């Protein structure tokens, strides 16, 4: 689960990770009162959406930049008015962009130097890792590729936590002066505490900055949490912003369906994540484009299939559906009956190819054939994929 920058920074403050003073507003009317909580002077105006590349983004109304520096609060108020309620397109949002529903105002800090700091899981060691660099405010992938010697990694033993000597090692490598070092140590210590205690899957500060006064501040904050651990963090679940999520994906999650919308025209409905991914791949292999990833899990009950069909037909790009079920334990005939009922209930008009395999498959195929519906049967994944691609392009 992702949260907004302003929410992440509020959590940072709770954990003792210093951030520039700021305040968020969700309506034009509240801009003045929100800005009144900040000191007069240079102010940053930051669009709050769950996507990166905001500064270089463009609004669909032509306004350029989702993050702006303003010399005065009055200018900040005017600038925010051009962002709120408008759609921001960035490199990460896709062409549809995201509607900006919250503006975050912060005091504009004087930057002495920018750094990069992140904590995430190191999959190779199954341990948390701190990644830091003296090159902040730029794409970290580029730093890793061009100047790997400027990227530092500290792997943390989960049994002992982050050790003081590791913090010192990092600080020496980043080259902070005496005052900065003291502040940076505290920030790193507290950021790790935040990462560990909140079940974060990733915390990224880019840039982390020093000021001429020796302060060390998180100028930006990107945080995501482990979905599997949300059950023990109701305070984090409360920060979920449904405006930032695809409505079809929200609907799918109500039926324990794992759904991700894509751009193609052939929808698929599959049991199992690996099989679902490879069903998308095989559609592409035979010349089609998958419209989604959809895993119905182990069961594939009638209710789930109905819900899945409804979500699929809600996507106007979809021209055909491929159902691929390996009913290992589940009776294929039960699944087939569910598919037939679902097609009738939804009133499905689109071409439908079903590939069923596994337990009691002959009876399942017979049920599909007897249904009186135009359901095309596929014998293997390859056969089914070829058939749906042909039907959709016909």
């Amino acid at each position, binding site marked *: 689960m992702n949260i907004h920058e302003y929410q992440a920074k509020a959590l940072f403050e709770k954990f003792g990770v210093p951030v520039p003073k700021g305040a968020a507003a969700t309506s034009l009317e509240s801009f003045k009162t929100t800005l009144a909580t900040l000191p007069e002077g240079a102010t940053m105006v930051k669009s709050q959406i769950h996507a990166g590349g905001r500064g270089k983004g463009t609004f669909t109304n032509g306004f350029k930049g989702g993050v702006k520096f303003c010399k005065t609060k009055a200018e900040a108020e005017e600038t925010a008015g051009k962002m709120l309620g408008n759609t921001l397109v960035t490199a990460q949002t896709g062409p549809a962009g995201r509607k900006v529903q919250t503006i975050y105002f912060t005091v504009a800090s004087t930057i002495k130097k920018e750094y990069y700091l992140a904590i995430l899981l190191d999959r190779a060691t199954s341990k948390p890792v701190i990644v830091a660099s003296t090159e902040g405010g730029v794409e970290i992938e580029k730093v890793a590729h061009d100047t790997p010697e400027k990227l530092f990694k500290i792997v943390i033993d989960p049994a002992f936590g982050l050790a003081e000597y590791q913090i010192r090692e990092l600080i020496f490598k980043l080259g902070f002066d005496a005052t900065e070092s003291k502040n940076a140590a505290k920030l790193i210590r507290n950021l790790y505490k935040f990462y560990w205690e909140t079940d974060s899957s990733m915390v990224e500060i880019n840039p982390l900055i020093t000021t001429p006064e020796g302060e060390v501040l998180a100028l930006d904050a990107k945080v995501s949490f*482990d979905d599997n651990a949300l059950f023990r963090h109701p305070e984090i679940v409360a920060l979920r912003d449904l405006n930032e999520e695809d409505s079809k994906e929200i609907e799918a999650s109500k039926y324990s369906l794992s759904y991700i919308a894509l751009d193609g025209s052939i929808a698929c409905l599959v049991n199992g994540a*690996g099989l679902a*991914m*490879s069903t998308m791949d*095989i559609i592409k292999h035979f010349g089609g484009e998958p419209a989604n990833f959809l895993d119905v899990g182990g069961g594939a009950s009638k209710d789930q299939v109905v819900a899945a069909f409804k979500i699929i037909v809600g996507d106007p790009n979809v021209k055909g559906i491929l159902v691929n079920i390996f009913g290992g334990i589940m009776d294929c005939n039960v699944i087939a009956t569910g598919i037939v009922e679902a097609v009738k209930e939804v009133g499905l008009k689109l071409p439908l190819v079903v590939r069923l395999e596994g337990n009691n498959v002959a009876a399942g195929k017979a049920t599909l054939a007897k249904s009186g519906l135009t359901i095309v049967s596929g014998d293997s994944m390859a056969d089914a*994929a070829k058939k749906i691609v042909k039907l959709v392009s016909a």
Partner: protein
Amino acid sequence: MAILISSETKILIQGITGDFGGRHAKLSLDYGTQVVAGVTPGKGGQFFDHAGKKVPIFNSVADAKKATGATVSAIFVPPPFAADAILECVDAGLDLAVAITEGIPIKDMVRVKRAMQGKSTRLIGPNCPGLVTPGTGEGSNGGCRIGIAPGYIHKKGHVGVVSRSGTLTYEAVFQLTTLGIGQSTSVGIGGDPVNGTSHLDIVKMFNDDPDTHGIIMIGEIGGTAEVEAARWLKANCKKPVAGFIAGATAPAGRRMGHAGAIIGGAEDTAESKIAVFKECGIEVAITPSDMADALIRAAKARGVTLS
């Protein structure tokens, strides 16, 4: 022979009195697997009845091991308690803990993995279908089935299958069996980013197992575990190997069902993994329908008999 488990293996099931665990305990008993104990704290002394068999239930893994000689556990307990269940197996000194549970917090697994360092217990999973060593009976009955895989699609033989994904494992096994080619053991290692046993661990075992003549290795986007295994195979394995990587069409930054199936960097993509497979002499299945055929091609090229 096979790897990790055989028809002699005695297993216990943690969470046998739950709906999910109970259902699969019955299927394992039907398959002829030696399910000798169940563990549900507070229900010690009761029995799990199925088809004339009475499986004793114990309060702890240690008690169950002591009374029955079970060496392997299948874990079906809910996510908030699953890490604890794994540690209980480690403490009781079981040979193998197989965590079927989906949705265990990653931090819990990070801690479990650290706690297992230097211990004798091996973990498979979590979020995995488990493993099957097929038997000689009808529909491979009489084998050892741990977890949730369909037993009957297997056939006793000489191909080792390893995969992160359950249904893709079944797909590969089914293709092999349909072509009359049996399996030594099929292993689902699970779709989470932190798991107990890697592709590399399993292919090493298949390489050492004289009964395994060929290997199908199935992977996904995310992480670099398949790449590590492929490089090892190139240097150490003479047996024919076929590979498949799911997720060529997956967009970056989106988690594809499995917590571990997410493209984070350049090395995580299907494209880069497939390139390494090819470079390491692994016969790549062009589509998921091609997995068994790919292994047959690899076996022919090396003059190896699979069945």
